[in-house]
């Protein structure tokens, strides 16, 4: 073979995904002295944080009480302390991993294609919205709730006039509230389960504004010929069906971890319902069964941003340590304790049970 290809760029630690987990991983790895390259497929860094206009819960160390988009700013400020160590590329997607030679291919925009050979990789690729199949779900006007939130809070575009939200988890509740704040009417929230999945404080705000939350109800079909004009709703308790007038159907039925490259790397993967999909087996320091790959954030299992940030820090620090950089071992204990405290309590029981199945001792 004497074929010549473009030069392969080297990197110490490649962080794929510049959201809550990825930026935290980059900051931590750089603080230990490692060189870091962050690839972000979106036009800006910050991931989902940039559209979170609400204040975060969680712990003080992870900026509880601060609005999400401001947390993105704090992480970027932290990164700016290491200008010689951290390089970021936006509008750049990792395209694949080739395990024979450890090469990662990437595409910037749609006009530039290049190869990287990192020593270590932190996957912080987040999640994608789960979709459910129902008749006419391909009509214009059927959206993922996250997409609607991006449209409103990042681009300032109103999705429509009357929204039916499907799903009363935190995303469904928060996006409903933000739609109302933006002057859009929410005709109702459907929830198939007998109880509200999200925090009461969010649900209470919605109820005070008069929006009905219909438990044990599901969508059976979108109605309309060119665009959404309504929805056919069914009570799971009685089987009764009725139509609701709406021009937007917003799906907030969950997220699925996204980390395709881990399959390409041959990492051991398991389907864990509590973590909402296929996730890699990893150790307590977020290292997968492929010794060059770490995992952090929603890609490791659907949780929330505070946990994602700590997992990112653990992954970044451990990846740096694996390259021989000296790190303060106590920090791992501090991070472990912060994660434990976030994962205490009934609401995190599902997370704990899921992690037990994939975290090796």
């Amino acid at each position, binding site marked *: 073979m*004497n074929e010549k290809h473009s030069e392969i760029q080297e990197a110490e630690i490649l962080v794929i995904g510049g959201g809550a987990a990825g930026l935290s991983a980059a900051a931590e790895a750089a603080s230990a002295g490692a060189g870091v390259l962050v690839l972000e497929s979106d036009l800006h860094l910050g991931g989902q944080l940039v559209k979170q206009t609400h204040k975060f819960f969680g712990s003080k160390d992870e900026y509880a009480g601060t609005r999400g988009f401001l947390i993105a700013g704090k992480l970027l400020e932290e990164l700016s302390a290491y200008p010689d160590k951290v390089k970021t590329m936006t509008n750049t997607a990792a395209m*694949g991993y*080739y395990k024979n030679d450890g090469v990662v291919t990437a595409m910037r925009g749609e006009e530039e*294609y290049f190869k990287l050979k990192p020593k270590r990789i932190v996957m912080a690729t987040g999640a994608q919205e789960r979709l459910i199949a129902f008749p006419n779900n391909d009509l214009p006007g059927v959206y993922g709730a996250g997409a609607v939130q991006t449209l409103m809070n990042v681009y300032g575009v109103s999705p429509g006039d009357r929204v039916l939200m499907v799903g009363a988890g935190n995303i469904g509740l928060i996006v409903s509230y933000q739609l109302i704040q933006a002057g859009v009417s929410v005709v109702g929230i459907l929830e198939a389960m007998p109880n509200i999945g999200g925090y009461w404080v969010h649900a209470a705000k919605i109820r005070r504004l008069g929006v009905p939350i219909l438990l044990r109800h599901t969508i059976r*079909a979108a109605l309309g010929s060119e665009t959404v004009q309504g929805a056919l709703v069914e009570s799971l308790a009685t089987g009764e069906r009725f139509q609701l007038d709406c021009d937007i159907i917003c799906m907030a039925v969950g997220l699925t971890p996204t980390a395709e490259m881990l399959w390409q790397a041959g990492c051991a993967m398991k389907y864990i319902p509590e973590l909402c999909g*296929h996730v890699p087996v990893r150790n307590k320091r977020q290292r997968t069964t492929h010794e060059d790959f770490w995992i952090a954030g929603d890609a490791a299992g659907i949780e929330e941003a505070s946990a994602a940030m700590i997992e990112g820090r653990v992954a970044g620090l451990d990846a740096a340590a694996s390259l021989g950089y000296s790190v303060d071992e106590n920090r791992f204990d501090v991070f472990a304790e912060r994660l434990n405290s976030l994962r205490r309590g009934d609401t995190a029981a599902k997370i704990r049970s899921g992690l037990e199945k994939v975290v090796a001792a």
Partner: protein
Amino acid sequence: MSEAKCCCCESDGSFNLAEMENDTVLCRCEEVTLGTARKWIAEGYDTFDEIKRMLRVGMGPCQGRGCRDILLREISQITGRPVSELSPGTIRPPVKPIKVSLVARDYTGGDKK
């Protein structure tokens, strides 16, 4: 809401949901319906990769990000095997569509055959 109509509505305004479900789009990229997929699964093509080869599900711009979960749930329902035991299929690079010209440009010389 009397003006809302769709192609599958009965004339009396009731809905033939079974028929509507068969016409539901499972894979938007390749325009594969639930009914088509169910037919193939019932015939024994009951893995993600087999359905992919028969129907191109998961081979479009989103590379299965939209349809993979839905199809695995369908396979699970029809075969009775839990989703946790089903293979999500082989996931190869590139994970996003890329112009062939970009890959070709990456090749900068050497002997061409």
